[in-house]
């Protein structure tokens, strides 16, 4: 009985869609544009994350220690560093580890390797590498490190030149988020208006049916449900269409991004594949919710009991 009614509601919704085909087409198109922009924002967010990551990789907050520093002095300093606000991890790099990584980094540089062999012993110092929680924390961490009490074990610090870069990265990230919010808001508003209008037109086209349904005692939900189902149908078609359009788009975008960001770690298609369900699922649910709200307003306004 209920299944039968649901089937009839869906049938009516599909008929609505077909009867106002051009209005439906325009509505879905606007929805696709909105979803496209939302996905574009996902891309922007992803790129800024990758950019931040690549900066983070380059940030090296290292405290170089005296070669003959005592174990307990080093661990005391390590504990002190770990208690600084914003610091997540402090790792100790021994002389041997430092040499190893230096050698592997400069494997192709023959003259450096040569020079190293001539010195005969390990010329590198042990160090403590500090990692901050987030990009935004680095600045405060650096300031705290600057103020660290003079430890005899510290030979030198290396971190000054990153401050400007960090500051501008932080500003850019915050700006991007603000713009994203604004653009999303505008698109959501436009979508609400367009869906509202489409449902209004559908109601107008069906005013006779609605009148008859009311007259013969159709329940109120049965009269209203097709317009809500139509709203969900719009969302569904919109998401399917945006998937079909967006993948070719990011395939085209991908090669440019790699060279622009100068890192190999940009994999947009992979990112979208990996988050397919969450990205498009949330978009479908969000679009459905927005469309149902718009549709309900139209139905509440134009379908009187």
């Amino acid at each position, binding site marked *: *009985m209920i299944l039968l009614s649901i089937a009839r509601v869906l049938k009516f919704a599909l008929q609505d869609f077909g009867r106002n085909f051009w209005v439906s087409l325009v509505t879905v198109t606007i929805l696709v544009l909105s979803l496209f922009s939302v996905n574009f924002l996902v891309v922007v967010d992803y790129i800024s994350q990758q950019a931040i990551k690549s900066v983070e990789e380059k940030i090296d907050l290292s405290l170089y220690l005296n070669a003959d520093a005592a174990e307990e002095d080093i661990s005391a300093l390590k504990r002190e560093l770990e208690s600084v606000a914003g610091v997540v991890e402090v790792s100790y790099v021994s002389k041997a580890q430092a040499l190893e990584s230096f050698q592997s980094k400069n494997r192709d540089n023959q003259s450096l390797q040569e020079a190293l062999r001539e010195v005969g012993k390990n010329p590198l110092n042990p160090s403590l590498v500090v990692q901050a929680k987030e990009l935004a924390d680095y600045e405060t961490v650096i300031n705290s490190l600057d103020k660290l009490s003079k430890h005899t074990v510290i030979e030198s610090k290396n971190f000054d030149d990153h401050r400007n870069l960090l500051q501008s990265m932080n500003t850019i990230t915050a700006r991007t988020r603000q713009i994203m919010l604004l653009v999303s808001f505008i698109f959501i508003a436009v979508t609400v208006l367009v869906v509202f209008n489409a449902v209004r037109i559908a109601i107008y086209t069906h005013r*006779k*049916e609605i009148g008859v349904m009311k007259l*013969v*005692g159709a*329940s*109120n939900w*049965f*009269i209203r449900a097709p317009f809500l189902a139509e709203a969900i149908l719009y969302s569904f078609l919109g998401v399917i269409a945006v998937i079909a359009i967006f993948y070719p788009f990011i395939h085209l975008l991908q090669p440019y991004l790699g060279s622009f960001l100068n890192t190999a770690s940009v994999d947009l298609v992979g990112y979208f594949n990996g988050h397919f369900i969450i990205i498009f699922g949330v978009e479908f649910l969000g679009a459905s919710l927005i469309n149902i709200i718009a549709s309900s307003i139209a139905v509440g306004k134009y379908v009187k*009991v």
Partner: protein
Amino acid sequence: MITFENVTKFYPPNTNALDNFSLEIKPGEFLSVVGQSGTGKTTMVKLLIGEEKATKGKILVGDWDITNVRPREIPYLRRQIGVIFQDFKLLPAKTLFENVAFAMQVCGHIPSKINLVVPQVLKLVGLEKKIWRYPNEVSGGEQQRAVIARALVHHPKILLADEPTGNLDSINAADIINLLEKINKFGTTVILVTHNKEIVNSLRRRVVTIDAGRVISDQKIGKYIL
């Protein structure tokens, strides 16, 4: 069956469409309601099907007080009260069968029941040979009969006919009135709102005359007195 108790219906800015209107209708009655245009007849019909709310007074259908009927109860009220208006309100893109079936579909009936009941009611109104025609392929009288068939699918206890013959010539009008009498004989209470003097006089049934929203005459075997 139906009771109006001192019902007033006020339309802003300054119309009392019904003014302290009282009327009692017994089960199985065939009642004609007459009166000039704008005297509140359609308002009475709209109050009965919950399309409008009374400003004052009380309305009962059976022992159901519908004065302040809630929106979600209205569908159940309308399944008990069939309504026919002057404009036929058939859907032009559907055949007569589909028009009648539509009324059952939207109320959640199963196809096997629909396929059983729809031909029955169409036969009752004499349209068994034309069930696959579209509304514009039959006469006005036949369209009105299809509307009556549609109003009968829920086996209503009450049939309200608001000027059902207003758009018909006298022969077709007489056919519709005969049909209403036939439906009344099966036990349905019929309320006929009309202007038509000949019809009222030939019926020889109870006639209530309304003027300015009040009952000014109520005769057992009535005549059109205006």
